[in-house]
């Protein structure tokens, strides 16, 4: 089946008319966070009650993706009035339906005029919490697949790349490599077979943006990949998803089947000569498989071990063919860029970091959940205005960004704008977007130890600096937190970090020392107090406290 633009508009119109036919529309969050608080049962109960009251044509109950404020789940939103309810239980169902059209149920109200909602600028997550991720029609009703149509029928591949380049979009997977440049390289590679890979491995423990996007709006990523395929001359794609995200896997598979059925994937898409198919591959719980060359090895069915670059995957990738690898969020930015133009996107953010970034706020912070904000938003605003500050009246200590490859940012940098380059300057990285807030009860040596233990167990073992270095650094950190260290250990620690940074084979080993280096730099007193006074300044390390 081939689709044209009229078909697309027709689908959108039918869907819109259908929605407009309802007096009230209740959106229940069915992303993984709220599901684990019982939103599935809640949605069933709402549906049954609406049906019992004979209101099926008056009020729609719809499962949607992440509404953002995961800590207060289950969340529901009334699309018609813009009201949010939090912590909703099955016993609240009657009251909610009674209140439709009148005053909202006070005890359930989730204030929607707070900075958490107001400061957000939604591009990647524009449909999250608004559309049913399991129905392609709803995505199409929100201009879905219009960008693919536009690209295929009215733009040449170089014109598509031109827009992406002009947008200033940089990779959201960690390193921030300019996306337009990467696409150009792949498009220039000479080969009849090329591949597009979407990196949905999201290994950073403490980050869940990619999961939310895939669970809430999977078609956006598929559309982005198809546009990338057209621009670079590839006709096959892979989405490499973590097996730990069963719901995301299920929704992506469903979305792919729907896209194929409608003909937005497959042969002769929109009656053009462009063919594109996408397959799903499951990760198997190895952090290093987020690294692009390891990921390729894993898709090929081998152990996920990185290899030296160059040659880069853009020239020599999957099954030795030129391969474009981008992160989920990178692809999710593409459809709006094509639809609204690169110039529009470049107008958001800072000089060198364009657009928005989705962050996963977690740790010791009031509003844990998902936020999307313009690049360059000050860290203080993120933690205190949007995040609502530290719970329990405790003091702020640090924000950890970039996961095991990133660093801990202390209070003195709170006014720093959050973009790629500022984060790099203070020794951390943007990473994929995890932000873990720590309060005064966290011992920074212990945090460094936690990340080193992670890198140690995730090291693939191929290169010695990483395999041996992570173990040695971990042992030293254990000695420090365990009250058995000597002052020489500190010098040794710094030496080892330097060695690992400069001689490891891949990004895992090269960046593994970052948490240690930043805590050594900004929280040296905690190390010294452990070593010299045998005390943990934060009172977190039990052994030290007991001995002293």
């Amino acid at each position: 089946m081939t689709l044209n633009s009229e078909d697309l508009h027709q689908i959108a119109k039918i869907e819109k008319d259908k929605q407009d036919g309802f007096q009230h529309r209740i959106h229940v969050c069915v992303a993984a966070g709220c599901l684990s608080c019982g939103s599935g049962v809640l949605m069933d109960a709402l549906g049954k009650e609406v049906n019992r009251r004979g209101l099926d044509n008056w009020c729609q109950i719809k499962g949607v993706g992440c509404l953002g404020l995961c800590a207060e789940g289950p969340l529901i939103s009334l699309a018609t009035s813009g009201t949010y309810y939090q912590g909703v239980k099955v016993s609240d169902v009657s009251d909610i339906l009674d209140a439709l059209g009148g005053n909202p149920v006070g005890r359930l109200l989730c204030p929607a005029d707070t900075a958490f909602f107001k400061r957000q600028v939604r591009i990647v997550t524009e449909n999250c919490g608004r559309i049913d991720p399991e129905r392609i029609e709803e995505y199409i009703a929100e201009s879905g697949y219009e960008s693919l149509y536009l690209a295929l029928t009215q733009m040449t591949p170089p014109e598509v790349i031109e827009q992406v380049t002009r947008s200033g979009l940089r990779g959201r997977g960690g390193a921030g490599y300019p996306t337009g440049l990467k696409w150009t390289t792949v498009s220039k590679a000479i080969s009849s077979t090329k591949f597009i890979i979407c990196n949905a491995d999201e290994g950073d423990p403490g980050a869940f943006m990619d999961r939310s996007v895939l669970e809430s709006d999977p078609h956006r990523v598929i559309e982005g990949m198809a546009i990338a395929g057209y621009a670079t001359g590839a006709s096959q794609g892979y989405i490499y998803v973590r097996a730990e995200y069963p719901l995301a896997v299920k929704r992506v598979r469903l979305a792919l089947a729907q896209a194929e059925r409608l003909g937005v994937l497959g042969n002769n898409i929109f009656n053009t000569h462009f063919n594109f198919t996408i397959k799903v591959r499951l990760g198997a719980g190895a952090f290093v498989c987020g690294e692009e060359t390891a990921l390729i090895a894993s898709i090929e069915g081998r152990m996920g071990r990185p290899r030296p670059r160059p040659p880069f995957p853009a020239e020599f990738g999957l099954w030795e063919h030129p391969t474009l690898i981008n992160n989920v969020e990178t692809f999710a930015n593409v459809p709006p860029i094509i639809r609204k133009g690169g110039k529009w996107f470049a107008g958001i953010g800072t000089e060198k970091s364009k657009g928005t970034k989705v962050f996963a706020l977690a740790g010791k912070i009031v509003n844990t959940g998902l936020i999307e904000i313009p690049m360059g938003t000050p860290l203080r605003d993120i933690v205190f205005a949007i995040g609502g500050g530290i719970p329990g009246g405790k003091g702020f200590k640090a924000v950890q960004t970039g996961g095991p490859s990133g660093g801990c940012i202390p209070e003195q940098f709170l006014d720093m704008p959050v973009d790629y380059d500022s984060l790099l300057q203070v020794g951390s990285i943007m990473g994929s977007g995890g932000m873990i807030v720590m309060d005064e009860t966290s011992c920074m040596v212990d945090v460094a130890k936690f990340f080193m233990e992670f890198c140690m167990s995730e090291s693939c073992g191929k290169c010695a600096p990483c395999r041996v270095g992570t173990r040695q650094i971990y042992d030293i950190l254990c000695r420090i937190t365990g009250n058995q260290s000597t002052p020489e250990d500190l010098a040794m620690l710094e030496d080892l970090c330097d060695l690992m940074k400069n001689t490891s084979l891949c990004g895992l080993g090269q960046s593994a020392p970052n948490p240690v280096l930043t805590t050594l730099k900004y929280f040296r007193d905690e190390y010294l107090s452990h070593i010299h006074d045998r005390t943990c300044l934060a009172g977190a390390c039990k052994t030290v406290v007991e001995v002293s």
Partner: protein
Amino acid sequence: MKEQVPNPGNTPPASSKPAEDHRLRMVNRTMQLYRNQSHALIETLHTVQESFGFLEEGVLKYVAATLRVPLSRVYAVATFYHSFTLKPPGEHTCVICRGTACYIGGSGEILDDIREKVGIVSGETTPDGQVSLLVARCLGSCGLAPAGVFDGEVTGKLSPEVVLEKIGRWQTHDPQ
């Protein structure tokens, strides 16, 4: 009751009557989907684990032969990735997240308590074969830290008490 020793000796060699075993049929289906190409190895191992609960030696040999991959490579892949286990699991499985958010949120204490009071650490099963403990690296439910998975069901905002109670109920066959 399930066997607790790895590769129980009484399991018939998997390759003997492949078509008769429903679980093996699932495995065959995955391999056929990829036309028995060697790059289907990881996908196949996922299916083996899903159907059998763990990677059984006899089945691994069968997979190696069908996909024409050296057994050494099958074993290398099976042990490289954390999702795969070569040991049969207990009746129930408890996964505790030890990602950053959950660690900061106190999942370490939960694991300490399980070690002290139930006597198992990650990767182990209680002697009665009832409960296996596993540790995850972020379930993507960081907003609900500390989080865990109990027999496939994700639960957030855990405390040591809640987890111990749940495990206790499994061990005493309390259906609650």
